[in-house]
């Protein structure tokens, strides 16, 4: 998904200001790569493309290969498009013991997508994730930045259906 010679990306004025602030914040410039990727991902509908990496390389004056390497290492940077509401369901051990995998299957079934896919209307994408530190309130899902805990298949779908 990393292609497209045609695709372009440019940070907004606010985004650029934020990246510059991060560049000045730490002892070394490289420490600003992760924060900058967060800013750019938010401005690029939730995922990172080659165009994003190249733009960041330019504005940060850091080699593109360096930024690309960091981008690929961390799971919170999406390499493929995600829905407006990116649903991440934990299937690690504490959640698996309390029905996290059944919950994942139910959500995929109800939304009509497989893991990693985006719904036709672009509203939802679903992925399974490793432990998010919500083990005492399992099973759980994270939708964008927010945790939803102690779920049942029904309560999870009610929450998702309420999202525009």
């Amino acid at each position, binding site marked *: 998904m990393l292609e497209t010679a045609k695709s372009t990306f440019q940070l907004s004025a606010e985004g650029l200001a934020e990246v510059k602030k991060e560049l000045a*914040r*730490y*002892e*070394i*410039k*490289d*420490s*600003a*790569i*992760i*924060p900058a*990727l*967060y800013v750019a991902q938010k401005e690029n509908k939730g995922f990172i493309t080659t165009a994003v990496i190249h733009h960041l390389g330019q504005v940060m004056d850091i080699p593109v290969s360096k930024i690309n*390497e*960091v981008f690929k*290492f*961390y*799971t*919170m*940077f999406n390499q493929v498009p995600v829905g407006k509401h990116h649903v991440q369901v934990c*299937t*690690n*051990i*504490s959640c*698996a*013991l*309390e029905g996290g*995998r*059944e919950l994942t299957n139910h959500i995929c079934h109800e939304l009509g997508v497989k893991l990693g896919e985006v719904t036709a209307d672009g509203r939802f994408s679903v992925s399974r994730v*490793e*432990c*998010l*530190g*919500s*083990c*005492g*309130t*399992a099973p759980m899902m*994270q939708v964008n*930045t*927010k*945790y939803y805990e102690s779920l049942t298949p029904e309560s999870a779908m009610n929450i998702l259906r309420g999202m525009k």
Partner: protein
Amino acid sequence: METKLLTEFYHLDEFRFLDGYKKNGGYVNLEKALKMQPQAIIDEVKASGLRGRGGAGFSTGMKWSFLPKNNEPRYLVCNADEGEPGTFKDRLMMERAPHQLIEGMIMSAFAVGSKKSYIYVRGEYYYPVEVLEQAVQEAYKAGYLGKNILGSGFDHDMDVYRGAGAYICGEETGLISSLEGQKGQPKLKPPFPAVKGYLQKPTIVNNVETLAAVKYIIRDGAAAYKKFGTEKSPGTKLFSLSGNVRKPGNYEVNLGYSLNDLINNEGGGMKPGRKLKAVIPGGSSAPVLTAEEASRATMDYECLAQMGTMLGSGAVIVIDDSQCMVDMLGVLMHFYHHESCGQCTPCREGTGWLNKITHSILEGKGRLQDIDLLVKVADNMKGRTICALSDAAALPVLSFVTKFRDEFEFYVREGRSKVRGSFYAQMHH
């Protein structure tokens, strides 16, 4: 019974904010600490017997003593990259009591002579980061951070750094790599971070709970702190209880507390009609205990080590008789394979094979010799890599296969789980 030392005021919403924190004894002891000799604080922490609460259980005072005795700038880093499956105590501590951590960190920074600290928080913890960032701002405004703190002449700056989703960044050298803007790959030790850490400068990396506990050692003194817990494992510990119990949650108890009591009193026991099958006592990397072993275990470093497992991060994962152990090992192996950073061959390849072999058994394609193959692969992964992730993947395999071998053999022979109603049993019918 719970012993609420660190968590005494966690039920108060106001404890999250500076005013409420101060109302309940906050920052009083910082003044006391700043009037002490830094070495006296290190000695007090050493005498308290405090051990790292993140997983390794290494003596905190000892770790601090490894710093070079010179004027080289040094860093203090709080490891809040809580990622060990089953663990959710640091999240609670940051959400409910950010100033407790900040106060403990300022005291610790003063002790080790650090003018700059970072709190490295896992990327998914948006809310804890928000709470912490607010609290750091409050602390700056009140003069607890910045120049000449409380007129002591001590300067200290603190910043919060968000990770981006990588279990390996919980390993202290992986965390340092990440903080330096690199892939979060661990580094060879020695040199240890205390000698060459962040930006090649001496660096102390301590867990959230460890740093918060420092405040109470300063407040009450090492002797008073040692009255909690056991002789060799002093203090209290937050245990994250999860899995098939009625009342999962974080519980602070004395070290040395009975595991049986933790599950049955604090945890409310098993669900109706269910029996305990197994317990993972210290996070997913800790070898599993059978129900019989669990009934004899006490939650201290020594007892669990003697039983061949570990206290780890204090994540107690309870598994009842409706669960299939082959299935649960499959869940864990998927995790370790996903999280291996790929640097060392035994780990990168080994976790892949362990995941493949376990899932081949789960799909009904296992051969009897695959059970011993799991053991062989796991054995070859131990002690041969830069960091402990490889061992962390190998140890569960060895304990699951040894202690629940009948379930693995049944699965291979019959091509299905011995446990009716378990996840894969449902999928196959």
